[in-house]
Every structure is written in C-alpha cells, then in structure tokens.
C-alpha cells in the first residue's frame, strides 16, 4: 500500500516536473526548429499569409541551399572560420597553458597581481576595445584579412583559458611535481610530461570553449573585415545575404543552419565538458 502511494506520488511529481519544463524546452528549441523549417520551404509558401508557418505543406525544397552554395562565398566563409578558429584557439591555448601553470603553481613576486590582471582582462568585453583595435589592425597592415582576426581573438581567449586552466592546475596534487623535480626532471619536462597529462580534461574544455567563442565571434569579424573573401561564416551569412531591401529569408535560414553545424556536432559529442566549463568559468571565477 505504502509503496503504491509513494510510486503514485513519484509519478505525479515527475509529471509535474516535465510538464513545467516543457515551456522552457519549447522556448529554447523553437527558433532552431523554425530556422530549419524555413530553410526548406518554397518561397510561394513562405510568403503566403494563409499557410500554416509551423511545417512544410507543399513539399521540401533545397533551392535556398543551392543559392547559398552557388551564388555566395559560403564555402570560403566556412573555410575562413575553420582556419581562424583552429589557429587562434591553438595559439591561445599554448600561451594560456604556460601562464595558467605559472600563476597557479609557482611562487614569485607579483604572482597575485598578475592573476588579478588576467581576471580583469577576462571581464573586459570586446565591445569596449573594437574601435582602437580596428586602428591597430590597420597599422599592422593586416586589416581586411583573416590575420586580423587570428591576431585579435587571443585577446579574449587567453584571459579566459588562463583563468579556466588555473583552476584545473590547482586540483593536481603538488607532490607529483615535487617527485619529478627531485628525480632530476627539469621544470619544463615536469610541466609537459607530468602536469599536462593530468590536466587533459581542463585543456579539452578550454579548447572547446575557445573554438566555440571564436567561431561565434561577431563584432571583431564584422569590424575588421569587409571584403567577402575574408569573412567568417557568421558575418558572411548575416551581412551578405541581405541585399538592399530584399531579404532572402530561406537562404538566410539555410546559412544560419549550416554555419551552426560544426558547433552543434562538437556540442553533442562534448556536452558534459560544456556544462562543467560553464560552471567552472563562472563559479571559480
């Protein structure tokens, strides 16, 4: 009797939980669903006020994707995004591993002040610096090329990854390093062979966030690059598919879907890293 009552209670509470969650999930996912539906809908149906907007009634078409592939530089934008994200993330990661280890583990004068400086730059938003940086990029002679972004993206990636990695390095027991040093390993060997392998989850996490942040970055990519051949996927889709007053809604949505695909794939595989990185970045920070 008692167990039946608790079971009924559990079912009722589960029902309550999931029915309360449903509106949140709907709110979170609907824009993506609508994006997808719109990208496969014919223009005739898209611009018919009498048709139901939620699904496709007159058959799915791929014309919007063809326009994207053959009438725009979409593949070039995707290639640019990939190069920029991979290179900027790799360089930033290397710099951040060194700095993060130093700030988390070594003792020297001013280490606390440097840690604070990294934290402050972590909080400086790109919107504060984009105007002077646009001039720096011109002076360096790299404006309007993907180098403008490869050089400037580490400005927000390095503080972020350093801060994240400092937290991970602190969790590694100090005795392990001390043993290696006593055994005659140099400090660099200790870092690369002993500490790094133990910090792999943190490094994966920093790499994932680095890739996501650079792929998604908007204001620098919009400001520093104006020729189509150097644009990133996000800016290319947002800016080049609107010509005058004509909006290619189908192709805009198709571009938004495809340019999100790399992030979605990584996200699905590494979901748990995203969850842990998000909480670590904020709570430890």
């Amino acid at each position, binding site marked *: 009797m008692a167990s039946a009552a608790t079971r009924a209670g559990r079912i009722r509470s589960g029902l309550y939980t999931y029915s309360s969650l449903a509106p*949140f999930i709907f709110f*979170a996912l609907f824009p993506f669903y609508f994006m997808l539906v719109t990208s496969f809908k014919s223009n005739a149906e898209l611009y018919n006020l009498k048709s139901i907007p939620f699904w496709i009634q007159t058959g799915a078409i791929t014309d919007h994707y063809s326009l994207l592939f053959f009438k725009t530089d979409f593949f070039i934008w995707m290639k640019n995004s990939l190069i920029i994200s991979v290179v900027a993330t790799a360089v930033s990661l290397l710099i951040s591993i060194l700095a993060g280890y130093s700030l988390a583990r070594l003792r020297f004068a001013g280490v606390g002040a440097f840690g604070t400086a990294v934290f402050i730059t972590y909080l400086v938003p790109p919107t504060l610096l984009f105007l002077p940086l646009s001039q720096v990029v011109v002076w360096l002679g790299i404006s309007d090329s993907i180098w403008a972004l490869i050089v400037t993206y580490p*400005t927000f990636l390095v503080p972020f990854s350093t801060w994240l990695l400092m937290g991970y390095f602190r969790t590694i027991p100090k005795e392990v390093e001390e043993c290696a040093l006593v055994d005659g390993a140099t400090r660099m060997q200790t870092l690369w062979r002993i500490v790094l392998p133990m910090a792999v989850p943190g490094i994966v996490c920093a790499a994932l966030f680095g890739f996501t942040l650079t792929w998604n970055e908007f204001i620098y990519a919009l400001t520093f690059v104006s020729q189509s051949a150097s644009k990133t996927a996000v800016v290319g889709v947002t800016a080049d598919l609107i010509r005058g007053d004509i909006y290619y809604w189908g192709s805009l*949505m198709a571009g938004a879907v495809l340019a999100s695909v790399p992030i979605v794939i990584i996200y699905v595989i590494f979901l748990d890293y995203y969850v842990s990185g998000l909480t670590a970045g904020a709570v430890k920070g």
Partner: protein
Amino acid sequence: MAVGPRVLEAAGLSQPGRLNRLREWWEQEHVFGYGLILPALLLLACLVAYPFGMAIYFSLSDYWVGSPGRFIGFENYRALLSNEVFRQTVQNSFVFTIIAVVLKTVLGIWLAMLMVRTMKLKRLVRGAVLLPWVIPTALSTLAWWWMFDSLYSVVNWTAIRLGIMSVPGPNWLGQASYAMAAVITVNVWRGLPFFAITVLAGLVSIPREFYEAAEVDGASSWGRFRYVTLPLLKPVIAVVVLFSTIFTFTDFNIVYVLTRGGPMNTTHLFATLAYQVGLNGGNLGQGAAISLFLFPMLAAVIFYQLRYVRQE
C-alpha cells in the same frame, strides 16, 4: 662556502659551461615563473592595455578615420551628454540590462529547480536548455528576426489564431516599446542557459540533510526554498548576476542584427551606438568616448567581483 671547479672535477663533474649556467638560471622558480607568463603578458599589454589607452586618447581628440585628430579635452564627452540620441541610449541600456537580468535570474532559478528534479532525461534536458547559449548568437538572432517579421511574424500568427491579439498584431521591430521587448526576449532566451546551468551546479552541491532537517522542523516547500535554498545559493547567484550584468550591458550582437538600434534609436545600446558613430560615421573620437562610458559600470562590477573572489 662556494663550490669551486676543482671540487666538481674531483667529484667527476665537468666544469659548468655557459649552457649549464643558463639552464640553472632558468630552473629557478621565479625566473621560470616570469618566463611562462611573458607571452601572455606581452599579448595583453599590446592588444588590450595599449588599445585601452588609445581609446582614452581617441575620446579626448577629434580623431576621424584617416585624419589623426588633435587634443580637444573633454569636448566629446560634453557633446555626448547634451546629445538626445546618447541620452536615449543611456536610458535604453539601463532598461535593457535591468529587465533582462532580473528575468534571467528569476527564470534561471526556476528552471534550475525544475532541472534538478529530472532523473532519467537529465542529459537530454541539459543539452536542450544549453543549446541557445552555444549556437552563434548572430545566427540565432536571424531566426528571431524572421519570427518578428512585420508581415509574416509567426508570433503574431499564433497569437491571432489563439485570439490573444487582434489582426494584424504589433509590428515588433517597428514600434518603440515592442522593439525593446523583442530585444530583451532574445537576450533572455540566449542568457537563460548560463543562469540555469550555473545555479543548477549550486543546487546539486547543497547537502540533502539540510532539507531533511527543515522538513522535520515543519518547513513548507516555500519555507525550504526561502530559508535553505536561497541563502545557500546566494554566492553563486551573486557571481552569475555580476557576470551577466557586464555581458548584457555591453551587448552588441542581438541589437545589431535585430533592430540596428531602431526604431528612432529606441533600442540603441552603448556598443551599437559606438559602432554607428565610430565606424559607420567615421567619428572615432566620439565613438571611443561612447564605449568608454561602459567603463564605470565595468569597473564597479570588477570591484565587487574581485572583493568576492578574495572572500572565497
């Protein structure tokens, strides 16, 4: 006593060469420590600190694209403070930030409290909830733009069919307060996952015994929330709110894609106005002054954040 070369020879060791001495020097903790942070420090000095200094200089000059300006003191700031559009922007920024952060906090705590109860579908629910935060904001905002279209808005279509709105429904992005509501909606949509997931991590770390003790004392579910959950979540919520305040206040993507600051500048934020004046208009001096107005807010938040981190 110093160890001379003869002692080393006697011990079977060769005289330390230049390379060895360099290595020894490098192996010292402080040298190694400074060496490792040097690349990061150089980068941040050249591409964050220096541009920040430039921004201050720009803001004190009449610098236009292509013509190095001269020093004009606080003229840009004075001009801005008496400028109608700028005043509107200040007001917009506060309305936008306060409403969006409050909504994200309340909904985020609520969502986290629901998520902590999910057992079987935990991973799926988290994956769905976090998605808006991961997808490029500029791209997902395109979808919202289409959903708020003046003629084909799916929001209006649904509301009209449900009898909530009368035909034709509001022109979301064309009317002042509706445009602000739209921009806030998208910001809440995109920022909610950050709140929910972080608060969830805080909730999970609360020991079960606390709730059991409260239950024994006869606390209602509201009482448990008010006197157990909320006080224990306070540190987490404080950090998330401070973070989110910075990133909401300095937001650019959503407004740029959705409204470009319109209609009639009623949704302009500091960042979008700085972009319009500094880059589209070419007035770098005044643009820099606009973005520097973000700084006092930023400094205040950093101050509280640092004080909080120190307390930890």
